[in-house]
């Protein structure tokens, strides 16, 4: 029985359910943060301590040496400049690849959802199936194709490769998003005399912000973390950061510095992480817009 007459706000007792919600979220967060914890701890320890093997313990001798080494002085072959060398290469690959693959995806999505082009749907179907094929299968023939055209091992080449393999997802996302836009809009623009390109740039593209954000996030993550394409197609001058990361981390017969490995991995992940932090809310909104027609 309530002794006081109920009035105003319902008394906010800390209900079991509320505690449960936070308990679950915190447990899940712990589970998901665990590897990160192990990596951070390892990156702050000297190798002697790592060999002793308590992976979750706090470092007894805290050192940031591994981080600075990973960034600027770890050796990958003759050059001992850490992964910082590849950073700008990665940026140079990233920006045009992301921009180009998004714009091509948007144009494709637009053409597929608003215009009827013969055979376009069949093309789209093949493209979708292509998304399920392991990339490795394409490597050899692509090398041949690109060396025939003479652009093999260049910045242009690696950008084209990223655009090609971004096609399925990008086209799918934009097509679905545009199918959700009212067709009246398009019809009105046609009646006003808009052509294919003017409608796209004046009407459709300005309405695509949520999807552009999602596409950017997906492509930035994918392209930034790519290793195999960068290695195969970029050429020595343009090797992305992941190749250096791999050089530091992977070595068949050399000794391993786990602290540097871990620090390098986290450093290499910074760019996508920043993108997530900055665009988190947009991400959810954009996916909502794009996934409707799944």
């Amino acid at each position, binding site marked *: 029985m*309530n002794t006081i*007459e*109920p009035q*105003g*706000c319902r008394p906010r007792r800390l209900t079991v359910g509320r505690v449960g919600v936070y308990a679950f979220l915190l447990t899940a967060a712990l589970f998901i943060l665990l590897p990160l914890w192990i990596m951070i701890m390892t990156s702050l320890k000297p190798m002697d301590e790592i060999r002793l093997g308590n992976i979750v313990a706090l470092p007894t001798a805290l050192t940031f040496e591994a981080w600075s080494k990973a960034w600027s002085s770890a050796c990958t072959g003759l050059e001992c400049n850490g992964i910082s060398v590849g950073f700008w290469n990665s940026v140079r690959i990233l920006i045009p690849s992301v921009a180009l693959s998004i714009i091509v995806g948007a144009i494709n999505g637009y053409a597929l959802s608003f215009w009827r082009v013969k055979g376009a749907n069949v093309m789209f179907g093949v493209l979708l199936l292509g998304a399920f094929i392991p990339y490795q299968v394409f490597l050899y023939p692509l090398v041949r194709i690109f060396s025939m055209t003479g652009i093999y091992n260049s910045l242009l080449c690696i950008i084209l490769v990223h655009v090609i393999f971004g096609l399925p997802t990008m086209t799918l996302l934009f097509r679905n998003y545009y199918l959700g836009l009212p067709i009246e809009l398009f019809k009105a623009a046609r009646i006003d005399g808009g052509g294919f390109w003017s409608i796209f740039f004046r009407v459709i593209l300005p309405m695509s912000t949520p999807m552009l954000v999602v596409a950017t996030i997906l492509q930035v993550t994918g392209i930034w973390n790519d290793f195999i394409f960068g290695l195969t197609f970029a050429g020595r001058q343009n090797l992305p950061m992941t190749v250096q990361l791999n050089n530091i981390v992977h070595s068949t017969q050399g000794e391993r510095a786990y602290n540097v490995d871990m620090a390098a991995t986290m450093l290499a992940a910074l760019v996508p992480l920043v993108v997530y932090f900055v665009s988190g809310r947009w991400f959810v909104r954009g996916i909502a817009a794009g996934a409707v027609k799944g």
Partner: protein
Amino acid sequence: MSAVSVRDVTVAFEAFRVFDGLSLDINEGEFIVLLGPSGCGKSTLLNAVAGLLDVSSGQIWIGGKNVTWEEPKDRGIAMVFQSYALYPRMSVRENMSFGLRMAKTPKPEIEKRVNQAAETLQITHLLDRRPDQLSGGQRQRVAIGRALVRDASVFLFDEPLSNLDAKLRNELRVEIKRLHARLGKTTMVYVTHDQIEAMTLADRIVVLKEQKVQQIGSPDEIYRCPSNLFVAGFVGSPQMNFIKGRLKGGDNGLEFVSGKRRLPLVGYQFSQKQRADGEVVLGIRPEHLTVADVGTWSDFKIDVVEPMGADTIVWCSDAEGSLQVRTNGCKGSAPGQHLALGIDTTQVSLFAANTGERL
């Protein structure tokens, strides 16, 4: 005993106070309509009554019980929403019985109530369809049916007809009115921004603006004696004519003067004694102006004529400005024609120009 009683309720979202100390009593079996433009807080009030929204202070009583802290399901209410809010991928029957099943009502009882509600609403043939196979009107019937099976003493409607086209809206409006009559003692609280719905359905209308109650009264009161300029302007279509002017002392008491228009206010019931020389707004509904060859005001010229079938709206103007007149015939229905207007002084409203309150 009132069926629903809102006592000194404050609703606040963080710093923003939606209501500050609002009170409202609703009688048993009454059909009450909360009317107001969007953003006036009418839905917030309804949600607070339903318990979907916590009040910051004050109490809500339903059926003689303080339900301020009760869950919506325990308040003896049923609710119908603008977007129908039907459970997707459940058949109509499942939609209607879901709540009862959750409350562990015996199966035969569920069956009985669903069938009864379906019959009442004439949706028996739809019972096994799914919402996405229904038209908008059918969906809203189902939503009402879902409310009906709850056997509630208070029905809450949150703009239930706003998503429907005009014809269906009329049809369902009548349906709801009939339902209210059939259910007898059931109280209905109905939120809308459509003054026609409010006028046709309500026993009493609560007009809200900017989170404040403007007037409570029967449709007739609201229509004839709007308590302020806002209510006067919001209710009624076409809108009431407003004429700015001032009160002057005349031979037979006060007189309204606006330029060369003059109107002796004989028979107008002032709510309190008025002095002369106040700035006022005169409100005259279009149907209280009559077209005459010789009238109170003359020298009007017809601008536009809108025939509406049963009656005709005539826009006419003189040097002071334009007025709408509702006539029932085709007299004086050519633009450019000159005419005079007769005014029934007992039907006009006067408002203070500064506060907008009725005088």
